[in-house]
């Protein structure tokens, strides 16, 4: 076999792959007739294939399908969600409305992060702290946003402090005192205020 041309073995494999040209097949067959070693090798290779091919078919164990389905990640219930939305248009409209409303209000709140104070004569502003000095009387309401208010004198009106602290020692405030810290309180305050303005507006209309 050592004297056999090397390509004969390649031809054997090509033959076994079913991928051999007619000329090569002729050459291979002629060689196998004359060379018993190669004939045996060819025989062994064919038997090897037959051996592997005699492997029985293996089937998946029972419940394989169920096990796979149980292992799948939970579906993003897009289909169910869409159905639900289609069935409850009113609710969806309300939800969308609420979403936009709160978005605008919270957005306003976020915008209002800078310090501001109602302009009143004889108020002293020191950085972010507003002081009503001792002995002074402020006539009218005071609204402080994002700052503190210290009242040492007198205020003849309402006091509102948003996102800040109200401090008073011996203060005299004739109106209401309100401290607002959270976004929700601020929301509530805004709503209350707009209702109040609406009402006073109506009152004014009526008095006219």
């Amino acid at each position, binding site marked *: 076999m050592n004297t056999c041309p090397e390509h004969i073995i390649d031809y054997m494999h090509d033959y076994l792959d079913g991928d051999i040209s007619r000329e090569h097949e002729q050459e291979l067959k002629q060689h196998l007739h004359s060379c018993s070693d190669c004939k045996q090798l060819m025989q062994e*290779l064919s038997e090897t294939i037959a051996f*592997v091919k005699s492997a029985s078919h*293996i089937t998946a164990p029972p419940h*394989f399908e169920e096990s*796979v389905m149980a292992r*799948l*990640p939970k579906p993003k219930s897009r289909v169910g969600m869409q159905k639900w939305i289609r069935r409850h248009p009113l609710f969806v409209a309300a939800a969308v409305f609420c979403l936009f409303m709160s978005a605008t209000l919270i957005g306003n709140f976020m915008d209002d992060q800078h310090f501001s104070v109602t302009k009143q004569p004889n108020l002293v502003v020191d950085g972010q702290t507003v002081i009503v000095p001792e002995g002074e009387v402020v006539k009218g309401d005071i609204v402080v946003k994002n700052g503190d208010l210290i009242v040492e004198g007198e205020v003849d009106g309402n006091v509102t402090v948003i996102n800040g602290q109200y401090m008073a020692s011996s203060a005299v405030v004739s109106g209401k005192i309100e401290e607002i810290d959270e976004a929700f309180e601020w929301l509530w305050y805004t709503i209350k205020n707009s209702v109040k303005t609406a009402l006073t507006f109506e009152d004014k209309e009526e008095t006219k």
Partner: protein
Amino acid sequence: MDALVNKRIKQVLKGDQNAFADIVSLYQHKLYQVCYRMLGNKQESEDIAQEAFVRAYMNLHTFDQKRKFSTWLYRIATNLCIDRIRKKKPDYYLDAEVAGTEGLDMYSQIAADDQLPEEQIEQMELQDRIQYEIGRLPDKYRSVIVLKYIEELSLQEISEILDMPLGTVKTRIHRGREALRKQLNNL
């Protein structure tokens, strides 16, 4: 069959998970068989075959429906099997000297369970013997031999599944056949 499979794939992509059950039931035996022949262990094969389906499900949107689904599925499964085989290989060197011994290397420490004694092999049932011989093949030959002679796939398909040129597939099949022949002849 391809039309049915593509229909089911579209349903799954639309969010109907139950349509995937049909796909699993169509291919479960084929996939399990490949895994079993590659790994030679029932528990492991079941685990890997299931994992292959789960991965197929999760990556279904990347499947090109103009191609053959089984090829894609086989590819996921064979990759998982090859990964598993590689992980099982020890990452220590066998010729490293064992600490505390003189001249004893790791070869002397492993039980000879890789090569069974001749008498034992001869007593094996044919089916066990086939699995044993396939399992003895180096994994790069094992995958092509399993796909070619057990799954009876074309060389072209095997080249797509294993993502290697047709020439390489042929060479590996030739060498795999040769290796198997030698294994069988040694007895």
